[in-house]
């Protein structure tokens, strides 16, 4: 299988797109390490789903807002496995409101989880990826297109994509490829948090050339493809997965 013997860490890997990514890597033979913030029930449910299909899955609770918890997370992985082959930074949060109404703390929290955490994870993963590895960040179309009430997350994703490119260059000498997958409109609980999401979705759905909304599995498939050896010469790329919406 494609990822047999590989150790994969998925941040925010217990729900929605993160769960689909965890399941995909499990399906393709990897040992999956699921990082989650607080929801133990969802994490255990993900673990059950993966274990049921024969995947070795371990849960790692860590709050990526705290740099020391990121160090502890990678430290535990070092103890448990001695290495990490693939890191998927999917964890994200944010607030849906007009950009001009954002408070400093809301901006900071969004930037720190969505973007700064990738930097700190990458730094801490260097020692775990001595034989090379892969890092893939999950972004969204809001990084370069204006979506109402999406300013906080959109800006953090723009910074994330820029960070991916810098890391791609700086980590290349360590044999680590860094890329991102940018999702369009994906059916998930998150999208329901956007004010007037039903109106927005009905308008957008008509504009998607693929004639359907994205599914978490569409993202997971793209992440797995980008992480595979078939893409071994792709560095610092932002792979757009949106059914053609941005065209």
């Amino acid at each position, binding site marked *: 299988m494609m990822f047999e013997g590989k150790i994969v860490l998925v941040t925010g890997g217990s729900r929605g797109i993160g769960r689909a990514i965890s399941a995909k890597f499990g399906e393709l033979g990897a040992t999956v390490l699921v990082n989650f913030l607080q929801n133990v029930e969802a994490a255990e449910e993900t673990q059950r789903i993966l274990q049921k299909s024969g995947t070795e899955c371990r849960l790692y609770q860590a*709050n990526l807002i705290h740099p020391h918890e990121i160090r502890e997370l990678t430290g535990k992985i070092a103890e448990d496995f001695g290495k990490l082959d693939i890191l998927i930074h999917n964890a994200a949060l944010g607030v849906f409101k007009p950009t001009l109404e954002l408070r400093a703390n809301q901006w900071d*929290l969004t930037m720190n989880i969505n973007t700064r955490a990738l930097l700190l994870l990458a730094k801490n993963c260097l020692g775990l990826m001595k034989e090379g590895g892969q890092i893939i960040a999950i972004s969204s179309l809001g990084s370069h297109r204006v979506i109402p009430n999406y300013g906080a997350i959109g800006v953090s994703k723009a910074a994330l994509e820029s960070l991916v490119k810098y890391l791609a260059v700086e980590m290349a000498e360590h044999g680590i490829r860094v890329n991102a997958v940018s999702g369009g409109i994906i059916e998930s609980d998150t999208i329901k948090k956007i004010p007037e999401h039903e109106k927005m979705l009905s308008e957008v759905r008509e504009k998607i050339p693929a004639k359907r909304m994205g599914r978490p599995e569409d993202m997971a498939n793209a992440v797995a493809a980008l992480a595979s050896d078939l893409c071994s010469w792709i560095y610092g790329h932002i792979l757009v997965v949106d059914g053609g919406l941005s065209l």
Partner: protein
Amino acid sequence: MKGWTEDGIFEALKHILADALEIETAIIQPDSMVMKELGAESIDILDIAFRIETRFDIKIPEQAFSVKPEDIPKGKSANEILTVQAILDFIKNRLEGQ
């Protein structure tokens, strides 16, 4: 309580709330409702929890500030009726348990 007094906890919490919510510490009272009266939104509750973790060196599990389900008015979430006192009580309990 790991070197903390009740007044000290309240003062530290007031500064956390004031800094996060961009409000004056003077308006923060134990019976202030964090969302309705101090202007916190859901994401701020998360931010405040993270700041408390750092300031008091404690872990805050999900729904930690929740009240009993039977005390939540219909159509409201636990966060919506959260008071400063409820957060204080939680911090004290955690510190006493250490």
